[in-house]
């Protein structure tokens, strides 16, 4: 009998393997439950999943989405529905970063502890109030739609971090989502919130980073003069400007957006310094708002020759920038060196509040991007650019510091950029606008930025 007892140890191994597997199943289920439960295949959620979900409001209490008698209703105004689509989301989870996708569990009151099916009286659905102003978004959407622009526009309060206006186009009405045929590219990027999930070549807007590096690392910067002939050979390749700028210092180079000036600086600074400054400014870094990950901006010159390095200093080469991240850089300049972290969830209400969702924190600062003296110098240059070059009337009644950009995309088209901030004490708004295939930033992105600022100002000024 003893021998059989010894041999029966084999069954123990079997049992231990079974219990290990069971443990693995339980751990995997518990850790992934939140993600799995809100997958679109879940019949509890997808078919009529938002039927009993909480409501979503804008900062003024305007209803963006709510459930009435088992139906998910969106704002009455189609303009608003389209403008806030990427922030709010639709019935599906196609727009991955939208509130209705990211926070569906909270909206429908799911937690792994109690599962999805609590009876009516105990359902802890959460209402979510966003920081955005629906009407401001609608105005910007109108302006972009009027020109058939595709792109991203974002405005946020650089003191508190509240995102006031966020629009991504193309967009659609959540009541009639598009049925996209294979190979149909008119809807390209429609499921992407381009403010959060897209990145574009930054073009001249990147000169802000090159300038900051030069101010901090090169002795006679920013007062050094350079003679721009309109084109120059750097690293065996032509770097060209739109027109010869003649004798210029950094402020003039910024205002005129001289490529040669900043390309020379980039080469002089060298790849390691450029890269370390780009990274201090948040390139190659991960940022997030709550659970929502912001697309990483990209800067890498490890394998670049001098020509590549030169072009990287003016936002070409392989540089890529996310619009919200560019707005954060402007907020850092406005704030004297460190950015205020943007957020979109203003308030969460629920009976039990057992979900994981919490409101964003106001006035939370990110890591320092530059010295405060550098920030002041950049701020002055951006202000000069607007005041002396574009004229203050470009932005209506607001005093704005900004940098435009016209970025060459690989396919021969050019994206128009403008990034900047309002210097008026009572209207602390940072913004970034990028119009795909918009050509010159000054003519495409700037008017949209003006609309965005004008539409967002009442939210911060109160009038």
């Amino acid at each position, binding site marked *: *009998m*003893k*021998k*059989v*007892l*010894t*041999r*029966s*140890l*084999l*069954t*123990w191994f*079997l*049992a231990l*393997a*079974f*219990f290990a*597997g*069971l443990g*693995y*199943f*339980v751990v*995997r*289920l*518990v850790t*992934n*439950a*939140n993600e*799995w*439960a809100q*997958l679109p*295949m*879940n*019949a*509890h959620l997808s078919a009529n999943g938002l039927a009993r979900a909480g409501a979503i409001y804008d900062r003024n209490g305007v209803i963006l989405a709510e459930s009435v008698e088992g139906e998910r209703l969106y704002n009455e105004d189609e303009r608003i529905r389209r403008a806030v689509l990427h922030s709010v989301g639709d019935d599906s989870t196609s727009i991955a970063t939208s509130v209705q996708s990211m926070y569906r569990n909270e909206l429908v009151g*799911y*937690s*792994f*502890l*109690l*599962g*999805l*099916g*609590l*009876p*009516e*009286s*105990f359902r802890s659905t959460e209402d979510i109030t966003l920081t955005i102003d629906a009407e401001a978004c609608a105005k910007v959407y109108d302006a972009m739609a009027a020109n058939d622009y595709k792109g991203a526009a974002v405005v946020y309060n650089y003191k508190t971090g509240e995102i006031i206006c966020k629009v991504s186009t193309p967009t659609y009405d959540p009541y009639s989502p598009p049925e996209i045929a294979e190979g149909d590219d008119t809807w390209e990027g429609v499921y992407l919130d381009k403010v959060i999930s897209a990145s574009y070549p930054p073009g001249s807007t990147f000169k802000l980073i090159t300038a900051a590096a030069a101010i901090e690392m090169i002795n006679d910067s920013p007062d050094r003069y350079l003679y721009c002939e309109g084109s120059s050979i750097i690293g065996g390749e032509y770097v060209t400007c739109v027109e010869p700028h003649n004798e210029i210092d950094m402020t003039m180079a910024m205002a005129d957006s001289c490529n040669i000036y900043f390309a020379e600086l980039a080469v002089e600074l060298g790849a390691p310094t450029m890269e370390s400054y780009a990274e201090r400014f948040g390139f190659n870094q991960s940022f997030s708002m709550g659970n929502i990950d912001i697309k990483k901006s990209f800067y890498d010159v490890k394998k670049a020759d001098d020509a590549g390095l030169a072009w990287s200093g003016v936002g070409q080469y392989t540089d890529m920038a996310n619009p919200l991240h560019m707005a954060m850089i402007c907020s850092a300049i406005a704030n004297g060196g460190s950015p205020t972290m943007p957020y979109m969830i203003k308030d969460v209400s629920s009976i039990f509040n057992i979900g994981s969702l919490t409101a964003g924190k106001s006035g939370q600062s990110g890591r320092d991007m530059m010295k405060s003296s550098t920030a002041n110098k950049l701020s002055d240059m951006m202000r000069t650019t607007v005041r002396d070059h574009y004229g203050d009337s470009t932005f209506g009644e607001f005093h704005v510091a900004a940098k435009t950009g016209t970025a060459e995309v690989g396919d021969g088209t050019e994206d128009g950029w403008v990034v900047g901030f309002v210097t008026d004490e009572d209207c602390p708004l940072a913004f970034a606008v990028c119009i795909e295939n918009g050509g010159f930033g000054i003519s495409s992105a700037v008017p949209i930025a003006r609309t965005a600022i004008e539409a967002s100002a009442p939210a911060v000024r109160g009038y």
Partner: protein
Amino acid sequence: MNGFLGFAFDLAVVILRVVIPLLAVLIIVQIYSSLRHNRRNERPLIMLWDEQDGRAIPVLYWENSIGRSRLSDIYINDPAVSREHAVLLRRDDGWIVTDADSKTGVFVNGERISGRTHVYLNDRLRLGSSTFVIKRAEEFMGRTRRSWFFNVSGKNGVSQKLLLVLITIFQFLVTCEACLTEEVLKSGVIDLTPFGYFLILAGLMWGEYLITSLAFKRVNFEIEALAFLLTSVGIALSIHQSAKQTIVQLIAAAAGIVMFQFMIKFLEDPDRVTRYSKWIYIGSLGLLLINIIFGQTKYGAANWIVIAGVSVQPSEIVKIGFIMVGAASLDQLQTKKNLFAFLVFSALCVGALALMGDFGTALIFFATFLLISFMRSGDFKTLILAVSSAVFASLIVLRFKPYILDRFNAWGHCFEEPYVWDTGFQQARTLIYCASGGLFGMGIGNGCCTSLAASESDIVIGVVCEEMGLIIAAAMAVAIGALVFYARAITTRSRSTFYSISACCAAGLLVIQLSLNIFGATDILPLTGVTFPFISAGGSSMISCWALFAFIKAADERTYAIKKAGLFSSEDR
């Protein structure tokens, strides 16, 4: 329903959902606690008194190997004794000694024996140059070893009646929950038919208890209690799926109980099973052959036959015969070391199942074969040889039928395109619905998992998790898994190695089957399509699970306790 009444019902539902899993855990703890308690002290049954040096050797087991091998139950340090010399057995009609093909023979009162020979008190037993006198055990004063599993010193475990009362309460609460679905809460119209099923199931359980305790005089009911607990969950979940299926489950449970009692009666004499083994071989192979010829395909495997409108899965019944012919008493293990007949039989079974396309069951048979052959021979070489030949055979099959591999492509990738829409469809949904259920479930009848194919059998774990929650699902799995520890703990207390081997292998088989079921449905292993013992729908499966439980029940010496009192020993219990 609105207002106060609506709130009251909602509150009741929430309380039910929390109480039911906790009660299930309590019941399982009580079942195992009862299995650990109510034990006799492990004292020697008789003893062998060495004439030369006056040393007393305790005889601890019902079957004891005697020999020069240090692993023998009775170890004799004598060069004239073979390593495995003899076997001393206890049967209902007394003590028996057998010569295990020793070189120098076994002598009882001076006469050399052949075959099984009865021995009595004060008989002189000579092996090699040693002579032993058979004595009562009372005179033995030494200490004996104890298993960690048993709690001999502690007070008695929960009474069997209370255990059944707890299960009845569990069944009642589950039935209440099944009546209070979301639709009922909304409409306010309650359908009370589930209570009919509840009455039948509770009636079966109490009827079984009364018959076994009054007619068969058995005092323990833990194994049956576990089966009824699991069956209750299966019945509750099938109520909202199909009334027909629920009734089939109840009928199968009744048939399973009859099978269980028959098995315990049949297994009472292990030597009788050996005598019948030829017929078991023939019957099992015949069943599989009929299956291959007349088999019907369901869910991709032709493992069904239809007899008079009732579909039967012969492989489930063959499982029972498989273990029966695999297990053997100790003297058979020592004398007939050749596993050839069983080896051929196993190969035929696995081959027949593979031919039907039922790879899950084929795997179960193969793994059980490994268990049985190792417990019989203790030989790792056989094990390695069997595994490598199986791997080789599978490679040959895949070489000629590579499409079989396609079935397993989704393994580990069930959420990825395109598997999430074809071969990973069920696994991905199972996980989603497991997640939807959370710890306490969405309530019986409120799930979506039931809309999936094979939700009542292969991926029933998804339904359990979704509707009743992870706690209950894990508790049920642990309850079955822990049977292995129990089966191993009673190994040396069984009345024969026949029981030890069959109990360990039955528990092992259940665990293998449960692993394939749970891990297959949840994408940890490839999906093979086997049942969750007692919970999955299926009459054949239900009956075979009861039969497998009978092996475990039979291995516990308490099952046949009433008839074995007073063999050379004044205190047996």
